[in-house]
């Protein structure tokens, strides 16, 4: 019996000779991640053990991104716990405000996750890195604390579900719409405990940013992970990180490469080459297979209060909104900002609307400034923010009042997700979000361009 890509990567990280769905494994991890919400609990638990060091200083990543730049004193204390811990234990990959970004955009960009890796993160959207052909799963704070100690994690080998997309994407349709379509089809627990493997010609032609957006939302279908077999697009992406001209060269040397290397001018060297490219065997076993015709997928919106409440944007008439958010670990990457800017160029947003654009990392921020995108957003009447998860989880930087509605490129629209329990969030791709800002109501990009 053949193995899926997920099973192969798990097998590579465990001592056992074979893996079967449903079995518990103790796996060695390549990287573990925590943020300003989840890491403080992990650090508290870790410190109770009184150990002198973490399992590997290079394999722990701490990113204060949720309530950072600190929104209040309590959040400042949480962020400080991370900074102090990083200092005390010599954690190499701690990213302070000014160098940080939204973790799931930052880590791939920094070359910290490579194809074939096994990554755990105390954040549910850790599944994002599956886009690189890594097994990447969300875990909790105690798991993270245990990983700090052992570099290991207990996991159940998941069954895999195969999602085959064929046909060419329609205009204004991206990875976000493909995943919303999938979640709309199978429901918010449709892939519970399962690895969601995305494949087919549509995926093979999909950009890395779109792949990251897709895998990011695997969790919204209950998935343990999302994964796409690495290919030429993956290779190009991984290579681009190695290439300083790609624009990611201004982080402090210690976070990427050894100081000596930087001073000698060798920047951005990935940790371990290009990673390892795995793919599923032809006779690998899947618990379910789904086929979707991309030509039939239109720009979509998930209406409150579940990501599975998916409707074509054209079906939503006169949904007036108060706020538009373009950003997050789902759609805060440069190609997302480019699409939004394309729609907003030379236009003004509706006068009663707030538009909040949040590039996911400092690199993306700078690219957006260089390309003139930031200017477009500001001239349109929007704000252009420093990277933060902020409004996505109702943290800060754009909280909704009672009765308000927002269209957002984020990933969750649960009750009160962005603020007051009586507010509502509509999830969509950046093109729809930008068009809606112009119209003042949820709109198809065609209506404004």
């Amino acid at each position, binding site marked *: 019996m053949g193995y899926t890509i997920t099973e192969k990567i798990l097998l590579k990280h465990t001592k056992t000779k074979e893996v079967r769905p449903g079995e*518990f494994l103790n796996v060695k991890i390549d990287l573990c991640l925590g943020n300003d*919400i*989840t890491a*403080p*609990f992990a650090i*508290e*638990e870790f410190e*109770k*053990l009184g150990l002198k060091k973490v399992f590997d200083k290079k394999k722990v990543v701490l990113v204060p991104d*949720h*309530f950072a730049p600190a*929104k*209040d004193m*309590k*959040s400042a204390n*949480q962020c400080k716990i991370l900074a102090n811990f990083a200092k005390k234990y010599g954690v190499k990959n701690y990213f302070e405000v000014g160098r940080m970004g939204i973790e799931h955009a930052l880590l791939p960009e920094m070359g910290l996750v490579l194809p074939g890796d096994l990554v755990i*993160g*105390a*954040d*549910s959207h*850790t599944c994002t890195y599956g886009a690189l052909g890594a097994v990447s799963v*969300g*875990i*909790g*704070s*105690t*798991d993270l*604390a*245990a990983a700090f*100690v*052992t570099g290991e994690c*207990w996991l159940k080998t998941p069954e895999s579900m195969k999602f085959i997309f064929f046909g060419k994407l329609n205009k204004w349709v991206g990875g976000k719409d493909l995943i919303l379509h999938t979640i709309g089809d199978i429901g*918010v*627990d449709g892939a*519970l*405990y399962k690895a969601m493997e995305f494949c087919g010609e549509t995926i093979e032609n999909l950009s890395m940013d779109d792949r990251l957006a897709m895998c990011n939302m695997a*969790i919204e279908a*209950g998935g*343990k992970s999302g994964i796409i077999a690495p290919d030429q697009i993956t290779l190009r992406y991984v290579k681009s990180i190695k290439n300083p001209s790609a624009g990611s060269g201004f982080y402090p040397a210690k976070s990427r490469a050894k100081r000596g290397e930087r001073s000698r001018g060798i920047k951005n060297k990935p940790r371990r080459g290009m990673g390892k490219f795995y793919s599923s065997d032809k006779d690998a076993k899947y618990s379910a297979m789904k086929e979707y015709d991309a030509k039939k997928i239109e720009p979509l919106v998930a209406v409150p209060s*579940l990501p599975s409440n998916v409707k074509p944007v054209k079906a939503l008439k006169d949904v007036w909104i108060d706020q538009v958010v373009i950003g997050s670990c789902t759609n805060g990457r440069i190609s997302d900002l480019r699409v939004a800017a394309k729609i907003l160029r030379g236009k003004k947003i509706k006068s009663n609307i707030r538009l909040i654009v949040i590039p996911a990392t400092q690199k993306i921020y700078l690219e957006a400034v260089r390309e003139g995108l930031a200017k477009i957003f500001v001239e349109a009447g929007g704000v252009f923010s420093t990277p933060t998860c902020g409004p996505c*989880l*109702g*943290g800060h930087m754009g909280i909704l009042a009672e009765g308000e509605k927002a269209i957002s490129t984020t990933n*969750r629209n*649960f*009750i*009160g*997700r962005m603020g007051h*329990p009586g507010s509502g969030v509509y999830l969509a791709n950046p093109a729809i979000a930008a068009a809606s800002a112009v119209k003042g109501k949820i709109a198809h990009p065609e209506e404004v361009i």
Partner: protein
Amino acid sequence: MPYKGRAHKFGDDINTDDIIAARYLNTTDRAELARHCMEHVDKNFIKKVKPGDIIVAGKNFGCGSSREHAPIAIKTSGVSCVIAASFARIFFRNSVNIGLPIVESTEPSKRIRKGDLVRVNTKLGIIRNLTRKESYRIEKYPTFMHRIINAGGLMNYLKKRIK
């Protein structure tokens, strides 16, 4: 150890924002987290809940974020056990890791009504509904998980291992 208490009923897809909204996550103070437990779905939950009480929910309980604050808020509120038709996986493992007993089973999730007095025995694999005089069989934990729960959570389990 059996867990006994009154049932608090919730529906399907209770997410982690329902259990504890993100705006309260800027602290690790357990008592403070518990004060906002289930606030989005039942404002008065924390006033009603008594030590030992049991949460009974539908499918996909705890979906959404990875925040361990969710099972911590539930445990600190006094709830002794959560029964649901199914759990979101990160919530499931977080509960195991912090030693909050959880039971995944459809029958009790459907049969138990609000206010029923319920006794859960995970060791024997049985739930008694003392109000309705019914019993439901439940699956025992897998050995691997039983070890963690018996140790009182993952860190205690780990402590024994590294000693």
